[in-house]
């Protein structure tokens, strides 16, 4: 009996070591680029002189200079970039979320003639790659004189949000039992009243998720903004990051690029990590148990 039990013990130990080894490799892979960005943003070494030594910096080589440079003295000013990004992404989030609430309610809680066809239509439409809508949009919006205007970007951003956020809210509302709405109707509320007073408050979490996702899209959009924004007064954070990362100044002063990238992504990272379980549940449309 003894040798067998001991063998099993060793097997278990080996398995535990192997598991930790696999997970450590995964964590190193996951964190390496993040570490590289952070360390570069605090480093004095220009990119052209980078060696692997940059990864183990001496304290004397650390500086906040890149952050200072990223936040000031650039053209266009950081505040102007931030303001534009917030206007575009904020409007898209607000409009997209508002329309998605009504869409989700109508598609989930009503059984009107044509409901099924509309759901199929939305799902097929949502398969058309949003990047390729930029081509027809460009000519439609040029005719309307909307290129390089605020509405010219807010409209396509909001339209993109309505489609996926509508599906998201519909799926969430499907999981709310009809009894809740029926009880509200018994208490004398109209269907609209029941929607605003009872169903909508239950949907705040999914609406928050929809608004967040509708915000992140435009906030990090380059493809549409690159085509639609022609004046530097309307330049966004994402456009500016692309410009400084791909020009020669970017290559020679990579600290500024990484500092800018960190400042730009920090609020998003914090939000994702804080609400991760919720966001993953929402993104998989409830197809994932647990």
């Amino acid at each position, binding site marked *: 009996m003894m040798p067998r039990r001991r063998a099993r013990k060793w097997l278990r130990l080996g398995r535990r070591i192997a598991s930790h080894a696999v997970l450590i490799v995964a964590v190193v892979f996951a964190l390496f680029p993040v570490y590289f960005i952070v360390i570069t943003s605090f480093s004095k070494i220009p990119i052209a002189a980078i060696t692997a030594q940059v*990864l183990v910096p001496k304290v004397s080589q650390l500086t906040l200079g890149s952050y200072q440079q990223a936040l000031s003295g650039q053209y266009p000013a950081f505040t102007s970039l931030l303001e534009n990004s917030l206007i575009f992404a904020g409007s898209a989030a607000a409009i997209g979320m508002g*329309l998605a609430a*009504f869409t989700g309610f109508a598609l989930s809680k009503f059984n009107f003639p044509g409901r099924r066809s509309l759901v199929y239509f939305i799902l097929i439409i949502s398969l058309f790659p949003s990047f390729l809508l930029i081509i027809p949009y460009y000519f*439609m919006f040029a005719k309307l004189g909307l290129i390089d205007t605020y509405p010219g970007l807010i409209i396509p951003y909001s*339209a993109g949000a309505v489609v996926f956020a509508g599906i998201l809210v519909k799926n969430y509302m499907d999981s709310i039992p009809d009894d809740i709405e*029926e009880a509200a109707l018994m208490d004398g509320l109209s269907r609209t009243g029941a929607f605003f007073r009872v169903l909508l408050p239950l949907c705040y979490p999914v609406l928050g998720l929809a608004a967040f996702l509708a915000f992140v899209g435009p906030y990090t959009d380059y*493809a549409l903004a690159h085509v639609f924004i022609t004046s530097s007064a309307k330049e966004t954070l994402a456009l500016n990051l692309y410009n400084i990362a791909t020009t020669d100044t970017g290559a020679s002063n990579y600290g500024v690029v990484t500092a800018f990238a960190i400042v730009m992504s920090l609020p998003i*990272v914090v939000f994702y990590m804080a609400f*991760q379980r919720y966001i993953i549940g929402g993104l998989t449309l409830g197809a994932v148990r647990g």
Partner: protein
Amino acid sequence: MADLRDHSVGFRFRREWPAYIYLIPTVVVLLFLNAYPIAYTIYISMTDFGTGGRGSLLNYHYIGLTNYYTAFHSGLPTTLTLLENSLFWAGGSVVLFLAVGLGLATVLNQEIRGRAVYRTLILLPWAMPAFITILVWSNMWQYDYGIINEVLATVGIKPVAWLVHADTAWTALFVTNLWLSFPFYTVVFLATMQAIPKDLYEAASIDGAGSFSRFRRITLPYLAPTIIFVGLMGFLFTFNNFYPIYLITSGGPGISTQIFITESYNKAFGSVGASPQLSTAALYSVLDFVIIVAITVVVIWRTDLTRNWLK
């Protein structure tokens, strides 16, 4: 609300008409900002809009299926390369995502010390905006100052010109894409695995099933719907995932890593000075859309995803 399936259309309309009012803004968006632009794209693909010859930006003509004829005859090598690359990019990525995601989830699903810490650290790449991290990765792959070559140099590996050869360019793309996506797949599979009732495993152990056969007979069947669902979603997303290819390889070398969506964007808005080839761009958009819809319809029809999706 109450099940009205058995009632007549007229009855349902009288009871359910407020839905139409709620849907007005969305239907306007769907018609004017989705359906019309898609139809317009199909129309442009049948014109000589910017194909040289008679067509110019202001003056173009309907030429029927001529562009499609060209794309499948003289232009066939390019079309096939784009098709092959798009399928390879999406299919290869999904295989990687599923393999790594399932593997790591299985390891994390044991009672192992520091599980929550591992999970949180692995999830970090997913929380960072992809556009930003892809820009950083594109810099990391550079030949002369990229950090990847510098790290390889410390273990004596000569610098690799990642983006100059087709196979290393694909490697760079797949590694970057895996980094972007494996956290999400790992966590999704882990959540599904944790919902499997524990007593199933206990019963199987008593019956003498080893860990491999428990995985094959219990875990895998339980995960199947999730695998199919996130696999399809991942395929559709990657097929049209623009930024990795646009920012890291720009489709190069040549067009050896170019896919429909990036080639379409380049043809339309590509290089300053070069005249845009709008009809070709539109044609690639249409092909992209047709392939995506076909794959989705087949997967939904061959599996019972419909229940989750189209209630």
